[in-house]
């Protein structure tokens, strides 16, 4: 599964569309950036409510290429700009972190079965 595949998912709205496509093999769900830094992997999609510029800094540090902002949190302009610069995709969703994790899990399982 790649980031492009996520753009076809009805529950996810792509809000930062200047990104480089990359393969996603897992997800990481956390609102603690230190935790993300310590444990997330580069090929994870990050599910979080942290809609601000530091999330991009952490994503860049870990090598994460796509994030999903849960609960329809508003994305600040400086965050979008930073993500654009780093070519990191940002999706927005009305779903919460649990439901998003389930959704990504199902997509990955389906992808795996193919």
């Amino acid at each position, binding site marked *: 599964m790649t980031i492009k595949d996520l753009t076809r998912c009805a529950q996810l709205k792509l809000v930062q569309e200047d990104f480089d496509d990359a393969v996603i093999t897992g997800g990481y769900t956390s*609102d*603690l*950036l*230190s*935790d993300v*830094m*310590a444990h997330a*992997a*580069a*090929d994870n999609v990050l599910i*979080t409510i*942290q809609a*601000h*510029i*530091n*999330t991009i*800094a*952490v994503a*860049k*540090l*870990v*090598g994460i290429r796509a994030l999903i902002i849960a609960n329809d949190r508003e994305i600040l302009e*400086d965050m979008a700009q930073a993500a654009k610069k780093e070519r990191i995709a940002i999706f927005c969703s009305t779903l919460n972190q649990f439901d998003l994790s389930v959704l990504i899990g199902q997509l990955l399982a389906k992808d795996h079965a193919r």
Partner: protein
Amino acid sequence: MIDKNIPIKAEDSASLILDLIYQLKIKDVMSRDLVVACAQDTLHHIKTLMKQRNVTGIPIVKKDRLLGILSIDDIFKALDNGYMDELAEKYMSKKLVILEEDMPLAFAISYFDKFKYGRFPVVDKDNLLVGMITSRDINVGLLMAINKEVSRMEEMLAQNAPVDAKNFRKVFRIRKYDFEHAGIASNRIKKLLTERKHDPRDIRRVAVAMYEMEINITVHSEGGTLTVAIDQDRAEIVAKDAAPGIENPELALQEGYSTANEWIKSLGFGAGMGLANIRRVSDEFEFQSSLGKGTTVRAVIYFKNKKGEEHDH
């Protein structure tokens, strides 16, 4: 308008600043976007012009030749005494202090000190009005020139210490609550280590330690520095801040212990994982802190993994 002199004096100013104020000419910093009026305009018209263009003084001209200046004080007087319908020529100041565009900026600075006006008209060699200069123009012009000069000096420093040198050393300044720039230092070093083809796992350990230190200084201190020293075998990072220090250093090392306030926590920081994270990724870890004296964290990471081996990051 100005109750203090501009504190740039030849005897006790930094030579870079002195160089700049003599190198820069008035025409380099003045505003060229002139708002002018004619002698036959009414004070009422000039008041409207001031409001529209957000200026407090308007030169009165006849074909680019300066006749006088009408300031907002003249308008106040006219409002008080009810003669707003009269003409500018009657009330404008004709005793003018004028600067020439090719004079060094230092002249303008001394004029602002000598004469207590908020602005000076600037004329060219032919005595035609070409601009106006305010202390704001001087501030902006000087800041831009200093900025350029400092970047040039930084570039020269960078050239003197080439990136491919075996030993790399750099000091990063970190400011209190400057979340916007947190991560710049760690990402710079990450890039450097990637260019040097270090193992991604080692690179990540260095980047994590640095980012946590950046966030710690941003969140908890009054500002500080990160000093990074890298050679072929290891990276040493020392985070140092001057204040306020930690009351209970042993407690601070425990995972989950945090003194961060709610808004810091709402940003996803301050969960008490920072120091624990640094210690986890480091091969050597030292931590010293005392209240009122500030905090020093030293982390050393050895490049254990061979360079350039393929890993999935």
